[in-house]
């Protein structure tokens, strides 16, 4: 049978899309993820596409339950995002998004580390186009910073692969672990860090909050789906059960929610909450039991859909009003009721309300945390769950669609956007109501039921009292108002401190340089003046001398020679 690797249709379609326009291109773009999904379904688990470069055996396609789930997910996400972007007439964005989705699929099905590296870099290269496609100065600079960190991740990965291959003698992409012994661990730590940068670990998270909100309304939807989830997949494959990940994940789940509360740009709020959701997945991978891994992967699946839905609804707001800051929005429910409802479905899903998708996956990670004795981590995750509801579940819909009336009377977005959001909303509800459909696709067999009385009741209590806190703070006017502002984060180091340090360093260097030049010129001047003073008319060297004194000089010289001649014997 003729087998096609999942990334191939996307790359081929991207090449064709360069030459066709209008409805043929639209048809092509919608058809690709559908045909790709059918192709993947038929392929199923297995592997093919072995090729060798130098001495290395590479494997283009290797599918098991873990990679297949991400494969299905990426096809669905691509379909939703493509429908959402169907109104675009922008070759750059459309081609880049197809290549980007294809690269994500290539990375997920890579059977060896070198193939993974190639698609890892392609992800960076294609996704930065979606940031630059905004075509503003800010987007250009944010894209540059984004690109720099993504490439850094790629280089670390390559370096790690070299060390790892030397130690292991194999390039197979399987369990790596942090390893023992210097030689072993150098490679695996470098790979760990490379995955970590792409997964927005603390201190490396600002590329996400920096670049995603600067992308186009449609570009952000693509961006939110692929890059970080490829990293989650890679961590789940290579570092399950690494305890360090539990603590990294707990940090990721916790600190962004503080930023999200005071952030004004609503798409940046979502970017911070994306890191928070990644935290849950990373904790799950770190715990590493089958329930925890299942939870992490299921949550990745749900997150792509509901975070996509939230980014789509905010993209619709940006598209129709030209604004995205909470301080400038409000009251949009009056003219955008459909978008409002769809956004609220996304908000309910990310907040893990019963019957919505977040509920059925987040709880798996939480249960795993408590079953494995991570009590404090469990408490932090519980706090993070309440916080998610607070900033993503309430703040996003509230400040965009309700709050004070901004006077904006924007129309509903184009039909294709509404259709895409509806598909995502339907999936959120479907997974929430009938989770077994998703559970059957998970990497490990399990019998887990999210809907028992205790769980539903406690979750509702947590959420309703978080909402009560919001209401109380708002009525008491204690809630921080939305202010046009920038909040300092780690990025300050390389956006402000480093350039400032470099600037003052170069300024000092230039000052020193100037001083050296001035001193040198001064010395040259003095030398010239001295020389001139001897050679000017009547100077010592320019004077005409008496013949007698010349002869006296010569005699003196000869006398000296004579003396020297004698003294050598």
């Amino acid at each position, binding site marked *: 049978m003729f087998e096609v690797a999942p990334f191939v249709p996307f790359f081929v379609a991207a090449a064709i899309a360069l030459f066709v326009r209008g409805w043929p291109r639209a048809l092509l773009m919608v058809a690709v993820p559908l045909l790709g999904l059918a192709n993947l379904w038929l392929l199923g688990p297995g592997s093919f596409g072995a090729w060798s470069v130098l001495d290395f055996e590479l494997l283009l396609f290797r599918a098991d339950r873990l990679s297949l789930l991400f494969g299905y997910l990426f096809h669905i996400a691509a379909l939703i995002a493509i429908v959402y972007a169907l109104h675009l007439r922008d070759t750059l964005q459309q081609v880049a998004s197809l290549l980007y989705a294809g690269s994500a699929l290539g990375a997920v099905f890579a059977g060896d580390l070198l193939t993974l590296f190639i698609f890892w870099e392609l992800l960076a290269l294609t996704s930065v186009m979606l940031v630059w496609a905004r075509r503003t100065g800010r987007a250009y600079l944010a894209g540059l910073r984004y690109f720099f960190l993504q490439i850094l991740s790629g280089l670390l990965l390559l370096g790690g692969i070299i060390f790892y291959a030397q130690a292991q003698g194999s390039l197979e992409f399987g369990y790596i672990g942090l390893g023992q012994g210097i030689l072993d661990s150098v490679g695996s730590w470098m790979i760990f860090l490379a995955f970590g940068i792409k997964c927005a670990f603390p201190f490396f998270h600002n590329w996400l909050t920096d670049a995603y909100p600067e992308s186009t309304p449609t570009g952000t939807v693509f961006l939110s789906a692929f890059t970080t989830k490829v990293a989650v997949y890679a961590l789940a494959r290579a570092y399950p059960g690494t305890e360090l990940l539990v603590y990294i994940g707990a940090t990721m789940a916790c600190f962004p929610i*503080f930023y999200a509360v005071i952030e004004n740009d609503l798409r940046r709020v979502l970017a911070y909450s994306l890191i928070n959701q990644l935290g849950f997945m990373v904790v799950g991978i770190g715990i590493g039991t089958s329930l925890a891994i299942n939870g992490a992967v299921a949550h990745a699946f749900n997150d792509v859909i509901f975070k996509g839905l939230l980014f789509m609804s905010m993209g619709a707001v940006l598209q129709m009003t030209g604004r995205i800051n909470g301080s400038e929005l409000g009251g949009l429910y009056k003219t955008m009721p459909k978008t409002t409802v769809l956004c609220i479905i996304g908000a309910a899903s990310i907040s893990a309300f019963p019957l919505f998708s977040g509920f059925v996956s987040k709880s798996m990670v939480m249960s795993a945390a408590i079953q494995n004795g991570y009590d404090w981590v469990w408490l932090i995750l519980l*706090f993070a769950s309440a916080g998610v509801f607070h900033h993503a579940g309430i703040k996003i819909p509230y400040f965009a669609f309700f709050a004070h009336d901004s006077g904006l009377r924007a129309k509903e977005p184009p039909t294709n956007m509404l259709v895409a959001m509806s598909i995502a909303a339907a999936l959120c509800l479907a997974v929430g109501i009938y989770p077994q459909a998703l559970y059957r696709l998970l990497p490990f067999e399990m019998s887990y039921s999210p809907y028992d009385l205790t769980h539903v009741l*406690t979750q509702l209590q947590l959420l*309703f*009292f*978080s909402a009560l*806190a919001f209401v109380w703070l708002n009525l008491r006017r204690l809630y921080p108002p939305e202010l046009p502002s920038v*909040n300092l984060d780690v990025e300050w180091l390389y956006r402000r401190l480093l350039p400032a340090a470099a600037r003052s360093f170069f300024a000092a260097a230039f000052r020193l340089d100037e001083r050296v030049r001035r001193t040198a010129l001064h010395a040259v001047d003095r030398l010239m003046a001295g020389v001139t003073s001897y050679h000017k008319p009547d100077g010592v060297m320019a004077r005409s001398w008496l013949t007698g004194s010349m002869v006296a000089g010569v005699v003196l010289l000869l006398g000296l020679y004579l003396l020297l001649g004698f003294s050598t014997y």
Partner: protein
Amino acid sequence: MSGDKHDFFDKPDNVRRLLRVFYGICALLVALDLVVHRHTEYRWEGLPAFYPVYGFVGCVLLVVVAKWMRKFLMRPGDYYDRVELAEADSQRGRGDV
């Protein structure tokens, strides 16, 4: 129907009614906590009204801390742009010449 919906939240009465329903649900959830026997896995989890208290206190703390963070983290909206975009512009200008 759309006329009715257009100013639904503009009427304070509607908002008040919604809030009253909301408070009712909150009270009901706490009451259920006393009636229903929850199976618990964590020692604090068994405390009466653990989840409501944790949710409420957690969120108030979250907001208070976040507000406090504004004191030393908040900068004007053009904090980065002022420098970065100016530099980019001057470079572009130089490139054109």
